[in-house]
């Protein structure tokens, strides 16, 4: 089993990007059910972190308001799961209901530390 980072990207900067309260309601239950399903398999490696939607972008001599201004798909959430390979991690990610709302998920394996 390795740990995989699921990075949820969604559009936070377009004008109509913010979901309506109703849309939020619609997505929250399926999302929690999806998480519960991962947790039920004991494959949730860390408590999920919700991210604030504004943030800051820091460059060498410049700090601007975030989220990261040059791409439409900002990071909306981070989830660390356990899976045996990329195929399994991808399959878990594919079931995420936020994908239906235009989000995308980047799946990245954490590189095992050779000293451990």
């Amino acid at each position: 089993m390795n740990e995989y980072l699921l990075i949820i990207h969604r559009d936070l900067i377009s004008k109509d990007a913010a979901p309506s309260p109703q849309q939020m309601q619609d997505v929250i239950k399926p999302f929690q059910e999806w998480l519960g399903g991962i947790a039920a398999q004991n494959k949730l490696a860390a408590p999920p972190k919700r991210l604030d939607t504004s943030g800051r972008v820091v460059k060498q001599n410049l700090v601007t308001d975030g989220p990261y201004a040059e791409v439409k798909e900002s990071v909306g959430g981070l989830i660390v799961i356990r899976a045996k390979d990329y195929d399994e991690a991808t399959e878990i990610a594919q079931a995420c209901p936020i994908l239906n709302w235009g989000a995308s998920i980047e799946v990245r394996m954490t590189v095992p530390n050779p000293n451990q």
Partner: protein
Amino acid sequence: MDASTLLPNLFRSEYRNMVSVLSYSFGIKHVEIAEDIVSDTFLAATETWCVTGVPDNPRAWLYAVARNKIRNHLKRDALFEKSISKDIAHTTPSSEEFELDLSVKNIADSQLAMMFTICNPLNAAEAQIALALNLLCGFSIQEIADAFFTSKDVIYKRINRARERLKEENVPIRQPMSDEISVRLPNVLMTLYLLFSEGYYSLSQNTNLRRDFCDEAMRLNMLLIDHKLTDTPATKALYALMCFHASRFDSRQNEQGEPILYDDQDDSRWNQALITQGTYFLNFASVGEEVSRFHLEAGIAYWHTHKEDTTEKWSKILDLYNHLLVLEYSPVAALNRTFALSKIRGKARAIVEAEKLMLVDNPHYFTLLGHLYSGIDNKIARQHFKTALTMVTSPASRATIVRNMEKLYFDGSDSLS
């Protein structure tokens, strides 16, 4: 009431009160002396009361005799005086003036202080529970062994080792300080939770004893609610959880002592007073930001006090299990979550999720699969029930599985699969 019926109850409650108060005064190093004095007192009571009858105020009698015994002990035993007098925290260290304070308040203070000493992660959880049952609740080694389904010897060793460990580290017996509550209280609550579960789920046939364990866990939990520092939302949530479970205590068994499953229980026998009390405490627990596992489990238990199968009930239960699992994984929660999922999303969908759980060492995994496949594919269902049967030994669990298999034959849908 004659001595033989009065004594066991009185002994249990007064044993724990006096041992706590004395240990609170003497410190953890001298717990044995506290126990010896209290045991001597009860021996004297047994002997005297059999001859003269039970006095009008047996408690006052016990306290007076215990006081005398301590004074004598302190006078007689120079070594005792030397070693203990400097440890006595709350009284003048002179034998003549030593006053055993058995007021309601000091008993409560002593029990609270002892709770924090005993529920210490220095010892494994099962050792903490055994020690709590013995010192805090006054159960005998034999009673604890019965409940844990093991021998007296095992429990005796477990308690002694745990006690030695606390002495080695010289863990103080004192009121919890406000800055340590957030670190220490979760472990105390967890031990009470396990103590309650020990009574609620014990395989022991001794129903009275099991109920006493549950009552004791609730009594200690109430002590925490009554104390300003330990009265947190999680403390109240745990109490609510215990109330909801305890409300079904009487309806879980038939007259032959066989278990009655939830679906077959007569809900008119559920204790409404306890349900009301649980609801009251759960409401008060639901302030602030904190959502502990006790909140979530109390919520699940609350919905189980509604017998009727409604979409709302199972959708709330599913939500709560989803939260609980994200907070803390456990196989039981994973299985129950999947059961709740089947009520909302249907058996076919639940089967897909159940088969991912891979809890192949757990008989309940196979009974869950058996249940989910019932009516969908009875051949597979029967196979899962059979696997479960090979994994359980208790007659009650076996009977339950066999009943489920029999239902498959009555279904008639067998031929379709």
